[in-house]
């Protein structure tokens, strides 16, 4: 049992961190894109979507090159923040964020674009600051679309393994997440272990989806 709990815990850590980061960055980016149609913003949208078209393993390869010691990035992070990416859970989180980012910001953008602009204007006229109007009017009205994306992102982060494997490796107890463990077990032909692990990850997924459902606002 213990051997199962460790990968589960690592997976949850990756998925939850990735989701939190996406919740902030994805919403902010989706909001930014929704505010104005411009060539520049559209280019940003496409660039942020591009990683999705690559097979995750290939994306992982690029991340490896990017984070590796050939660019200064890794060393800079390491010396300044004591924050390694290769072979560490941090790397797995970064990989998960990049893989799931489009899943979050695209639906968020669409949801923001569908909100009635007049309502935000009314908020301003009532003397409420732009930030406050964003949190009190726009965000709740776009919430349904945002949540759809965030949930997709969470589930995908939980299941992500191609890019993670490349960047973070598969070190039991350190970077071997549940999905990598499943992959390994399938490779090793350990059928009963595979079923056990798949059941576990499915239960986690179901619990999260059901919780999200109960906390989502009812239709007016």
């Amino acid at each position, binding site marked *: 049992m213990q051997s199962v709990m460790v990968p589960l815990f690592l997976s949850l850590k990756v998925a939850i961190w990735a989701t939190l980061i996406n919740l902030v960055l994805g919403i902010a980016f989706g909001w930014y894109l929704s505010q104005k149609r411009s060539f520049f913003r559209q280019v940003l949208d496409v660039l942020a979507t591009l990683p999705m078209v690559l097979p995750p393993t290939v994306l992982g390869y690029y991340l490896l090159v990017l984070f590796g010691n050939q660019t200064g990035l890794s060393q800079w992070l390491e010396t300044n923040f004591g924050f390694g990416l290769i072979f560490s859970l941090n790397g797995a989180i970064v990989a998960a964020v990049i893989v799931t980012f489009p899943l979050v910001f695209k639906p968020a953008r669409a949801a923001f674009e569908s909100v009635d602009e007049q*309502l935000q204007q*009314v908020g301003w*006229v009532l003397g*409420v600051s*732009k930030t*406050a109007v964003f949190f*009190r009017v726009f965000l*709740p*009205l776009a919430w349904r679309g945002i949540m759809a994306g965030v949930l997709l992102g969470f589930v995908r982060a939980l299941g992500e393994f191609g890019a993670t494997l490349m960047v973070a490796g598969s070190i039991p107890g350190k970077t071997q997440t549940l999905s990598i463990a499943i992959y390994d077990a399938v490779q090793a032909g350990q059928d009963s272990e595979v079923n056990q692990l798949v059941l576990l990850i499915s239960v986690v997924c179901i619990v999260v989806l059901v919780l999200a459902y109960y906390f989502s*606002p009812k239709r007016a």
Partner: protein
Amino acid sequence: MIFDINIQKKLVSASRTFMLDTQVCSHQDQVILFGPSGVGKSLTIKCIAGLLTPDSGGIKIKNRVLFDKEKNINIVPQERHVGYILQNYALFPHLTIEQNVGFGLNRKGLFNTVSRDNRENIYHWLDRFQITDLARQYPGQLSGGQQQRVALARALIIEPEILLLDEPFAALDKKLRIHMREEVKELQEELKIPLMLITHDEEDIKAFSADLIEFTSLKQVPKESF
């Protein structure tokens, strides 16, 4: 001079261009705009509230410059302190009536919760407008007249420095209309704030001792002339 407004704005849309060109000058602190449908009354008031930026001209109310194209002044809506009622109410659909009315009382907070201090104030206004029992409803569950009163309460509770009311009593029955008219008049006289009212109702014109500004449809220019 209390109202000193002179604005121009060109609105271009498919196959049609509307040219807004409004002059309103008045020494009185009550002004009523009236005139045919679609001449630009609502757009004028929107410019004053700061939701539409004129192409040229200036807006000065009670010697406060809200907009001046030449001097490059354009006060943001948050700082104009107007009580503005839109023709279509524009209530927040995700908030209860209580939260709608209290929205402007909390200018910085990131949540829509109603604080205890504010609650008393909110209920005071709900009472005045006879909608107390609707406090926990959502706008979608209200009748037209009820929604209109919520919009009024939401705009007035913030103690604005200018009142901009766009057909604020149109959905009310006669008795209620008289009552609400009195409420607004009282408030205006009490606070001595400039009031600008758009209406199609002659009773309104009679009830207020306002400067009457008639909008004619002359300003609408055919597309060819641009």
